[in-house]
């Protein structure tokens, strides 16, 4: 299944339309202490209109994968050393910088975790949103660009957009800034929106607003979304499919139902158990024992091995991907032929 060049018009969602496909992506960081495998053979695919959640702790490689898609990994020390990222018939790993510039912000847009620091403090909000338009739709002209910026600000729910357009980021609240970031990302009607922890830095009440906004706009505009998060609640609320990452690779992949109701990998089990629940009385919140592994000294075989409550001898070897359905697989020896070893 490869993405096809001619995609159906927006609004018509066909489940078979693959828009983005990441295949065996390998991104490394060369540091003085050694080579860090930020993303070690990650594969996922995104259909038109779909929301894929990428879940994992910090350092699991979820942001590295996303930044690799836009080829925004700082180079050096980072480098994509293998794999393919297929978008619209081209492999983004091989694409020239010029091709990438036309894709960034235009076809694939991104919103970041820190709205506080992700806006340029010396440029007005209008100028920053308008910049995308000027770059990718230079034929628009000044007045039309301005009108479109106001329209975008209204779209993301910013009141009195006419005035806000001339304000600087420091005059806006955190939630407003994230709305501006979203407006900026949506400026050119991108086909894919990568949201890298868009709500982690915001108040809980604002979080829900922003998630609802993203979902509403996704439906309105027919975008596909890659939602990067460490928050399972966000996943439950937004995702169609889920990729669970640990130690630079995907340990479990499935539909949102499968992930929440038929979790296989012990890491995902632990992650789910560490979510606070109101319906069960617990003395203490469950935590996964141990620490996120040092990316420089990843253990052989399954990276979760040192923390896994069900660890076996076989876990020193590379675990196979075991399929449970067409959409669901986990990378764990527990489900391999022979099951738990003697």
């Amino acid at each position, binding site marked *: 299944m490869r993405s096809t060049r001619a995609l159906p018009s927006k609004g018509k969602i066909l489940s078979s339309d693959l828009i983005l496909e990441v295949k065996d992506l390998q991104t490394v960081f060369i540091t003085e202490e050694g080579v860090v495998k930020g993303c070690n053979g990650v594969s996922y695919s995104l259909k038109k209109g779909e929301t894929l959640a990428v879940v994992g702790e910090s350092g699991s490689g979820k942001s590295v994968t996303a930044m690799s898609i836009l080829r925004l990994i700082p180079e050096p020390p980072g480098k994509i050393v293998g794999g393919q990222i297929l978008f619209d018939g081209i492999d983004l790993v091989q694409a020239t910088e010029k091709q990438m510039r036309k894709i960034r912000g235009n076809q694939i847009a991104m919103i970041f975790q*820190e709205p506080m620091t992700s806006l340029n403090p010396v440029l007005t909000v209008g100028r920053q949103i308008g910049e995308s338009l000027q770059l990718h739709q230079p034929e628009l002209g000044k007045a039309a660009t301005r009108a479109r910026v106001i329209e975008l600000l209204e779209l993301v729910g910013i009141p009195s957009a006419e005035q806000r357009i001339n304000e600087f980021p*420091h005059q806006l609240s955190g939630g407003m800034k994230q709305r501006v970031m979203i407006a900026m990302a949506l400026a050119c009607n991108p086909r894919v929106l990568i949201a890298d922890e868009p709500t982690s830095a915001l108040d809980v009440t604002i979080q829900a607003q922003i998630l609802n906004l993203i979902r509403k706009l996704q439906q309105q505009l027919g975008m596909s979304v890659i939602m990067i998060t460490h928050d399972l609640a966000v996943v439950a609320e937004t995702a169609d499919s889920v990729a669970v990452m640990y130690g630079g690779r995907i340990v479990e992949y499935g539909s949102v139902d499968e992930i929440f109701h038929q979790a296989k990998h012990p890491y995902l089990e632990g992650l789910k158990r560490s979510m606070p629940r109101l319906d069960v009385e617990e003395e203490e919140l469950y935590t996964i024992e141990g620490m996120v592994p040092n990316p420089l000294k990843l253990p052989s075989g399954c990276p979760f091995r040192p923390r896994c409550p069900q660890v076996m001898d076989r876990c020193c070897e590379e675990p196979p991907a075991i399929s449970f359905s067409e959409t669901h697989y986990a990378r764990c020896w527990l489900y391999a032929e022979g099951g738990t070893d003697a």
Partner: protein
Amino acid sequence: MLNYAIRRLLLLIPLLIFVSLFVFAILKLTPGDPATALLGDQATEEAIALARAKYALDEPLPVQYVHMMANFFNGDLQSIFHKDNVLSVVLHRLPATLELGLLSLLIAVIVSIPVGIISAVKRNSFFDYASMSMAMFGVSIPVFFTGILLIYLFAVILKWLPASGYGGHFWTIEGLRHMILPALSLSFVLMASTTRLTRSAMLEVIHQDYIRTARAKGVSRFMVVMFHAFKNALIPIATNIGNQVARMFAGAVLTETVFAWPGVGRLAVNAIFRRDEPLVFGCVLLMAVVYVVINLLVDLLYGFLNPQISYD
């Protein structure tokens, strides 16, 4: 903004009182006497007494100070050596100093900002190491020594440019030829510090989140550096230039002496040697005013550079 400017200018009054008291104290604490300096060692006691009376040097110190201040602000303060009004003597020399300062500033900015940006973008490259070594050299070497080296190279060995003196305004060819060497030697310190600061400011800005945002929008690397990053880096750079301009005035005293430049710096030095107290007093006070005004201009410039600053 206007209110702010007026408030800042009003602050000049206490500042000038403080500076004048300080200068006056130093003048009076220096051993020697203007009358003896004027008349020489062979002068009779009577002649010296007469001269002391003429310049009110026999009055008590507080009276002398008040006299000097009153005369300065009335424009009646007379230079002992030049037998002329201090204000007109200083103002006559001021353009040469300002021209020299302006040209040095121009040279420093034109060279240091691009070099600093390239050093930051191409960090740890040969260019970076070379320019940072040069900058280290520029910061460490005294102004008068650079001046002497420049004269030796360009005037003595190569004979391309005149060794000293003033040749007219810098927009005339002869004027520019005379001004290049002193301006170059004066610009070294500012050039060096601005290069280093531009580099570090750019390096800091380049790693900010909003730079990544701009890249994610599809802005080219060049435009990200020149527009998004530089506009932010300009805030610390402008601060540094503002502060350094003051140091340039101090440097001008040395440069003007080395290059026999007829500016306020050399006027002040000669006035000190001749114990021309009123003239020293006038020179220093005027320099203080110029310094405050330049700093005010830089502060007002911030308002344009940094939208987070407002002067209301």
